[in-house]
Every structure is written in C-alpha cells, then in structure tokens.
C-alpha cells in the first residue's frame, strides 16, 4: 500500500525532521517495512553532502546478503581513496551505522555523473543522495525507528518528503526503499505510492541512454525518468507533466529539488493524496492524519484531481 508525505515551508525554516517523522509515523499502518526521509536542511551551500551506504540492511525477500563489518570498513577505505584521487576533500565524516555514512565534501564540479559512477563502481557502495542541501536517509522499520536511529528529529530545513513502505514489487532492504535520488542531479529526490506497469520497457530505454538503476523497485523509474527529462533540458514541471503519459500504471508521487516541491497524480486518480496549502506552508500526504500531525487545528484540505501536477517554491 505505502504512504507518502511531504511539506514545504515558504519563506522560513522549520524542524522538518521532526515534522516529517510525525507525518510518516501517522501513516505507518500503510507500511513499515522501511521508511525513508529526503530532508532539505539549512546549510551554507558550500560543500556537497553525500549520504551513502557500504552494505545492506537485509529484510524479507531481499536479493542482498548481510556482510561482516570488516567488509564495510574495507569499502569505506576504497571510497576515501577514490575521493582523494578525484580531488574531493572530506570536510566532515559521520558514520551513523556500520553500513551508513554521511560525508561533507569540498568538491568543485557541477556534473556529478562521473563522480557518482566512480564511487558506485566500488562493489557494494551506493550513493543514497548527493547535493548541497538534500540528505536521503532510509532504513528498515517505521518512521520513529529510523528517525531515532539516525537522530533526524533535530534537522532544520525548508522542505522534506518521505515514504513509509509496504514492500510489494521488490524485497525489504535499503536499496529498494524510498526516497530515490534523481541520479546524477544534485538535490533531486522522489517518493512514490502506486505501481508502474511499464517499468521494464522504460528501464530498457533509459538504460540504453546511459541512465542508472540501482534496484528492481518500479518507483526508482520515476526518479530516473525525471532525471533524464531534465538532462535533456526540460524543467521539473515539464518532466512531471510528461510522466503522466510516459509512465503507465497508478501513481501519486512527490519530487523535491533544492528549492521546490512537486506532486503528480495519475490520470485515473487511483492513489490517494490529501493536500493542505497556505501562504507559508504546503503539507500533503496519503491520508489526512499525516497532515494533522503537524496541523492539529481545523484546516481546509482537498484531494487533487486526476492528472494534476503542482509545484511549489520555498
């Protein structure tokens, strides 16, 4: 079933980590195999923040295997050497869990494709997100468990999207969890509720165009699809509108960039979405109770109609 939630503060920052945790926890009945956060925090914008994993947290149905921590250490060492070879300087390093790391990197390049390909050529290493503001954190368990494990409740920023997953199309592991980074674009992330029925057709076409897929999760297609559109010069909104016909199936998805948040709903309106919009805050989720966790007072909400695309700026 899965649940998605997102919010954007316009003109101010807020404790988006805690707010999103509350929204996703309210949706935990829609799935708690894994939970993911894409948080757009307040930063000075000088360095890249790279969230990556050097191993898997393996749950039911996963094609991955659990490995020894010593393997993670070895992979981390290779990542550090590779960054050094590319002239990227590690400014700050955090290792939240043995397999999950956060680096702040001083690296002066706009095209992240080559950078990402070099890092991910190391076996077992996957970049979860790369950007000057975006941080994707995802792991097994419900929203509170992941929030506590990664200490996300203190994260201050402008906007965030998240996902509570009930695994259906692929196994329970981090690589199949949402959000998906819009590789190789800085600060682009996607969450999705639904099922895409032309996944393999689109995947073959996009892979032939040089795009990369890390999982077998159909939702990853949205991130790659939008990334490819933007690579060809489309705006985010143009890419999202194209997805209404380019993607087949039922879906409601959110996409976020450094300064914007968008939503798209398929032409059959088969997947739920409730939306609250005011001058200073937009909050949306699969169910109203997600919004109520940040706005308990009586508010006006509505369901966007079929085939609707909306984008908001911070």
């Amino acid at each position, binding site marked *: 079933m899965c649940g998605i939630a997102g919010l954007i503060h316009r003109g101010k920052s807020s404790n988006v980590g805690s707010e999103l945790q509350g929204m996703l926890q309210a949706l935990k009945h829609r799935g708690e195999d894994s939970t993911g956060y894409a948080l757009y925090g307040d930063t000075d914008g000088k360095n890249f923040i790279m969230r990556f994993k050097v191993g898997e947290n393996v749950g039911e149905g996963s094609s991955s295997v659990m490995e020894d921590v010593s393997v993670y250490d070895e992979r981390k060492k290779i990542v550090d050497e590779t960054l050094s070879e590319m002239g990227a300087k590690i400014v700050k390093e955090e290792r939240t869990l043995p397999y999950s790391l956060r680096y702040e990197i001083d690296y002066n390049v706009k095209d992240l494709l080559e950078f990402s390909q070099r890092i991910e050529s190391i076996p077992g290493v996957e970049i979860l997100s790369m950007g000057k503001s975006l941080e994707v954190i995802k792991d097994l368990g419900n929203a509170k468990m992941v929030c506590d494990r990664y200490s996300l409740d203190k994260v201050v920023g402008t906007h965030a999207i998240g996902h509570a997953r009930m695994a259906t199309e692929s196994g329970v592991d981090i690589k199949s969890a949402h959000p998906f980074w819009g590789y190789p674009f800085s600060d682009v992330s996607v969450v999705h509720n639904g099922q895409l029925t032309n996944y393999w057709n689109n995947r073959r076409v996009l892979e032939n165009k040089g795009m990369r897929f890390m999982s077998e999760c159909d939702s990853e297609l949205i991130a790659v699809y939008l990334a490819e559109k933007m690579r060809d010069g489309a705006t985010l909104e143009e890419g999202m509108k194209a997805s209404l016909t380019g993607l087949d199936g039922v879906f409601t998805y959110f996409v976020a960039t450094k300064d914007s948040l968008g939503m798209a709903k398929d032409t*059959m309106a088969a997947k739920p979405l409730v939306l609250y919009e005011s001058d200073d805050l937009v909050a949306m989720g699969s169910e*109203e109770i997600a919004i109520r966790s940040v706005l308990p007072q009586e508010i006006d909400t509505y369901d966007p109609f079929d085939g609707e695309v909306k984008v908001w700026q911070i």
Partner: protein
Amino acid sequence: MANLKTVSKKSKAQSMGMHTEVLTGRTQQKFFNPDEAENFYYFGTYDVDFNKRTELDVKDMTAPEANKEIDNLMSQGYGTIVIKNPQGKHSLGVGILNKLNLIFEGSLGYFGMGSCDGPIVRINGRVGWSCAENLMAGKVVIEKNAGSCFGAAIRGGDLICKGSVGARTGIDMKGGTIIIGGDAGAFTGFMMQRGRIIILGDVGINLGDSMYDGTIFVGGEIGSYGSDAVDAELTKSDQDWLKRKLKVAEIGENFDVSKMKKIVAGKKLWNYDNLEPTEKKGAI
C-alpha cells in the same frame, strides 16, 4: 427495468401501493409484511430522544473506542451527539443503524459513516476516501471537500458534499442521491446501478463509465463521457425534482437547473435485472 410486469395485488405491502411490479429472472423478491412488524427486531438500534444532547471528545480515542462510545450514548437514549476533535481519524461513525442526529466538529479520514442506516449527520469539515460507503438511509452532509469513492455503493439516503469530491464518486451505487456543490473527479458514477447524482460544478473524465442505470445531472463542464453514458432529455419533472432536492439539501437553492445536463445509461452494455429489496424498508 428488465421484465417488469404489472400484476394483481397480492401482499399487504402491494395493497398499500408501495409496488405493483413483480421481478423475474435472477431477482429474489422479498416483501415485508407489516403484520409481522412487532416480531421484527433490527439489531443494534435504540429508542433515542433527539432533544437529549451530549458531546463526545474523541481526541485521545481510537476509532473503535469512539464508535463504541457513540453506541453506548445511543443506548442511554441520547438522540443528538456532537463529536469534538475527530482530527481526520478513519472509520468514525460506522455501522450506525439508528435514527440519530450526529454532528462532527471537524474532519474525518477514510470510511467515515460507512455502512449506516438512518442517522442524520453533519460533518463540519472534510472527509477522506469512501465516505458513507453502503449508506442505506439517512442524510450525511459534508460542509467542505470529500475524497475519492464518495458514496461508494450507497443504497439509499441523501449524501451531500458542499465542496468538491475526488474520483469515482458514486461508484457502484444502487440507490439514494448524491449531491455535490463543487466539482467531481474522474469516473464519477462508475458502474452505478440505480440512484441519482447531482453535480453543480464540473466533472472529470469518463463520467458514468459502464453505468447500468441511474441518472447523473451535471451543471458544469464534463471532461468526457465514459463507455455507454449518453445524454438524455432534461424533463420538467426532472427540473422540479432537482429544485426540490437542492432546496432540501440547502445547497445551490438558486441554481438554474434548466441548464443542467442529464446523463443516463445507453444500455448497450446492459445485462442486469436485479433490484434491491428496498420495499422492505419502505414498509417499516
């Protein structure tokens, strides 16, 4: 209807003029005999006094706890219950088979007022998906917007949303009336079998797709017609009924119903001769 015939009066219900037809084919015809009324027990009902009023704050309750407390209050004879702080909780007010004035001071989540039979409900907020699903009788009024599958499979009663509603409104409805003050989403009236839908605003694509029967009235623009949904003539009788219904619903009282479009089933897909045994309820 298929294979309807006018027959000589047989039962007391027929002699009261409630119906004259006999149903054939796969129809199971069961008519209520008023002589047996005193032996009739309707499970989960209470004698309530509409002037006996109370409030119930459900802020810290789960939906089952809140619903049990509503049932408990009805058993004490409360006929008017005001629910405070529903805060978008799912499944509130479900399964009420009683005459009752129920007022929600706030919004409901999914499946609010599902499977009810008889209550008069006012929701001073919004409702999520599948509000009043399977409503048998009564009246549910929503002051703001509603989610998708609004009034799915209702069999009777009036369901009124003063705002806009999502997709598949009135899907599989088998009776009753749904009135929308604003716009409605795609697939409105999808596979509806009986009943009427009134939409004062615009409606999305595939209106009345695969409808068996029933009538849809639209005041605004139609995105597109679904399979086997066709225009029909808006008669004087239709207009009179629409005026009456909108007035009773306290919605669009001054709306110019003469310009509304009437959509019915083309019946090219028609293979349907089941009717609901609503006569039983009418006899009570």
